[in-house]
């Protein structure tokens, strides 16, 4: 039981890191970026390729993946969203074009890596096992949780206490007012995508590191969970996404413990619908949905 709960927390930390990418872009720009799962997948593949070719240590690998993700995010905004700016159907059209761009990214991954899953090199990451009070934890899981925590707290600090974060919150509330005070809205938009996709790419690599491998469907497998996290937490709420990611991870783990793994999605989504019925704004989206 305790073992399952621990596993749930580890899975939940990856869900959260992934979902925060959705929620950040939505909260600030009102874009639902459906290319995000593809960037998540690409982060895993890029991580595996860099690890295989260069054998650089993990603590350099993750900044490299983050940089790749950030660049990819900037491109997603340029290609799938910016050309639509000012159209009446801007948001809906962006949703469609980002699905299309995500498809292109997955096709490019397939062209480069084929259909077989890719694996991290053997022994790339020390396969160490720890035991605390009867709970067995791998070093990978610990690193995942630690990195996720550091990144999320760092993001929360950035949004609440830095000039960039202040500008992001200004754009989220009122882009025109932000422009009037001299905020470069184009740059804040690019920065938001870079942050969101950087985190998403790291989340993808972390999941691949935990699984040992990555296939093209890595992002698709987590996409719905990501939606569930942001709805549960309240769209646009960072703290909500953090809590909801862990809650979903725990709910899945408990389901596996009590029934078996075939039921885990059912329970996760039943939870989602229950929340939608009882608290339509999500567990934490109290007054303002766009609170970042």
């Amino acid at each position, binding site marked *: 039981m305790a073992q399952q709960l621990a596993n749930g927390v580890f899975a939940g930390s990856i869900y959260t890191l992934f979902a925060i990418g959705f929620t950040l872009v939505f909260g600030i720009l009102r874009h639902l970026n459906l290319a995000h799962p593809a960037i998540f997948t690409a982060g895993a593949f890029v991580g595996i390729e860099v690890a295989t070719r260069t054998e650089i240590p993990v603590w350099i690998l993750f900044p490299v993946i983050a940089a790749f993700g950030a660049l990819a995010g900037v491109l997603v905004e340029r290609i799938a969203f910016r050309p639509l700016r000012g159209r009446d159907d801007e948001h809906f059209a962006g949703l469609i074009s980002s699905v299309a761009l995500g498809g292109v990214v997955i096709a490019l991954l397939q062209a480069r890596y084929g259909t077989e899953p890719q694996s991290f090199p053997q022994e790339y990451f020390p396969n160490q096992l720890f035991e605390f009070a009867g709970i067995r934890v791998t070093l990978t899981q610990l690193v995942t949780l630690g990195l996720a925590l550091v990144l999320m707290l760092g993001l929360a600090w950035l949004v609440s206490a830095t*000039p960039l974060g*202040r*500008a992001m*919150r*200004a754009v*989220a*509330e*009122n882009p*025109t*007012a*932000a*422009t*009037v*005070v*001299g*905020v*470069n*809205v*184009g740059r804040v938009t690019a920065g938001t995508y870079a942050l969101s996709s950087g985190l998403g790419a790291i989340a993808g690599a972390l999941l691949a590191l935990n699984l040992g491998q990555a296939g093209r469907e890595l992002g698709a497998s987590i996409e719905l969970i990501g939606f569930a996290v942001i709805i549960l937490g309240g769209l646009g709420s960072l703290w909500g996404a953090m809590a909801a990611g862990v809650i979903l991870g725990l709910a899945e783990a408990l389901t596996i413990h009590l029934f078996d793994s075939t039921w885990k999605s059912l329970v996760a989504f039943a939870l989602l619908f229950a929340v939608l019925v009882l608290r339509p704004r999500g567990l934490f989206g109290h007054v*303002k949905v766009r*609170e970042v």
Partner: protein
Amino acid sequence: MSDHEQAAPILEVESVNVAYGRVQAVRDVSFAVPEGGLIALVGANGAGKSSVLAAVSGLVRPGSGRIRLEGNDITRWPAHKRVGAGLVLVPEGRQILGTLTVAENLLLGAHRRRRQAASETEMYELFPVLAERRALPASALSGGEQQMLAIARAMIAKPRVVLLDEPSMGLAPKMVDEVFAVIERIRASGVTVVLVEQNARRALRAADTGHVLETGAIAHSGPAADLLKDPRVVKAYLGVE
């Protein structure tokens, strides 16, 4: 104020046209603002006053015409770059950021001109009402306080030219007096002011030069004191006192 008239213009608007779709909001508007001057743009609702300011501040791109700040052609500059050059708008309806605190609104205003900007403390000395409320979300302020915050947010940038769009709109008479007192202080500190107002009499009394807009074009221009006496202006915009 003839000494102002002779100074080199800090802001020049030259044959500017603005259209929203097929609606022509501004027609061939030209005027120059001498450094340190205070000019008023008055006219009825929908005469194009706010559109002129939107073009000058970079919120809309004019269809044709030129806008110059200190001799530089800024017609194609994005809005944030104009703020950086010291051309700052206090927009209609205030547009303060209600979810941010009062202090954060001020910091945002200072950010683009970090080198020149005044300190938060200086703004609190000028606008004491904001000091007590600095940690509150700006949405908690009253309408008059929000207007003070909108002006303070522009002034913290130490602007060269400040564009005020309907600063007295929706305010109680006592607050209107306070806003005009603040405008006097701004111009006394040497900052150039372009004032757009529906309250034509108040605006012309504060200004040295006035331009009256009608359906997007300048209908009358001149020293503000003369416009206040011009029978056509009196009849259409000032009425009997």
